[in-house]
């Protein structure tokens, strides 16, 4: 399993793996929004939590089809399915690799983008905490969506249509944590709900993902 994780990470980091595309997308979004709504710091500070969360969500979405597509094409997914390691575990590892190459960099770069959007000073901690808690859920839910659409020829748009509604609860609670943090309110409730969603998704969704992968591979 560690070998699988290392293999996925190497594939993502080396040339053609697309590592960094998500980050670049996140950055472009943070540049486009002020260009679209105007440079007033008050307005930007007000919408920054939502923009940063939506940006992280879209950047995550962008890289989802890579999770299984290449392995499906060259047949290594069939090998994984017949390997002694249960497919559920392999799916979890793939989600983890996706998070390490997409979610974690987003978490790390988000304070810089918060600076660009005049995010209030008190909110930085909560931005990092909420993204660190929420992006694993995005990766796991996205893995389920990628597993659903793996065999399809033009799965990209369909994948977005399937996954984005599933992202709604995570987005609502994640952005709420940051906005409450920015206003200096207590963040316990949305933070606990966000953590609950992540824990539930990580615990249950790999089984659903493995099930639909088996259907797609038969």
């Amino acid at each position, binding site marked *: 399993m560690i070998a699988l994780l290392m293999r996925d990470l190497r594939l993502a980091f080396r040339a053609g793996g697309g590592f960094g595309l998500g980050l670049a997308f996140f950055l472009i979004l943070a540049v486009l929004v002020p260009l679209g709504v105007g440079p007033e710091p008050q307005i930007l500070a007000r919408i920054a939590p939502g923009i940063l969360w939506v940006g992280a969500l879209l950047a995550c979405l962008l890289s989802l089809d890579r999770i299984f597509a290449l392995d499906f094409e060259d047949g290594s997914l069939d090998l994984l399915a017949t390997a002694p390691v249960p497919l559920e575990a392999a799916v979890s590892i793939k989600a983890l690799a996706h998070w390490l190459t997409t979610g974690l960099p987003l978490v790390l770069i988000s304070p810089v983008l918060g600076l660009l959007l005049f995010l209030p000073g008190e909110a930085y901690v909560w931005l990092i905490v909420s993204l660190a808690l929420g992006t694993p859920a995005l990766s796991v839910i996205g893995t389920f969506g990628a597993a*659903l659409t793996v065999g399809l020829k033009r799965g990209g748009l369909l994948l977005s249509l399937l996954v984005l509604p599933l992202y709604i609860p995570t987005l609502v609670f994640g952005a709420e944590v940051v906005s409450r943090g920015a206003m200096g309110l207590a963040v316990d409730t949305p933070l606990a709900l966000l953590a609950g969603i992540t824990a539930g998704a990580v615990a249950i969704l790999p089984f*659903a993902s493995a099930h639909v992968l088996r259907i797609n591979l038969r």
Partner: protein
Amino acid sequence: MASFWEYANPLKFMRTSDWLLPIVAVAALVVTATGLIWGFFFTPDDFRQGSTVKIVFLHVPAAMMAINAWVMMLVASLVWLIRRHHVSALAAKAAAPVGLVMTLIGLITGAVWGQPMWGTWWAWDPRLTSFLILFLFYLGYIALWSAIDDPDTGADLTAVLCLVGSVFAVLSRYAANFWNQGLHQGASLSVAPGTRMDWAYKAPLYTCMVGFGLIFLTLVLAGTRTEIRARRMKALVTRERMA
């Protein structure tokens, strides 16, 4: 007494629905027409809302069926996943577009009602928002069905999507509640004492709800029959080609 599971046999299902469908269709037409005419022309105007209140006879039944259709799809998906009855998967497939349209009717009549009452076509109210989200779930479900060629794979994948989607739809409902306080009134009908609606409205409203339920049943039966026939046709064409 015949078991419900006999209808898992497509032949049996076709034979029964053959005589059942016209009866249900006529009943749906009669009951809905009665309810709507009664509601639109033979109920008094509300003392505050005037005659705009009468859109309730479309709005509430449609909204109810939008949710019930999803629940029916959930049950049918479970039956397919557990007992592998093809009729069940096809019924879930047939129910999705009906549910989608019911959601749309709920949203549109709500907008038409909200314009004079709240002064706005749309508000980011939890109920409205969760209905829009339900609409997106229906779209995703239908899109997945239409994207997959192999019928059994399609049935399996959409069934799992329906299960996972149901969990997230409920979560979204609570997320939306948490996210914003609403303009929308509370439940129109309630079994709690001190109900909010007079019988002059409630009787036609119940009639409309039954009528919409019958319409749903009619459309799902017809849709399932179409799907079964399409399958048969496919099998015949394949056999022809093999010969």
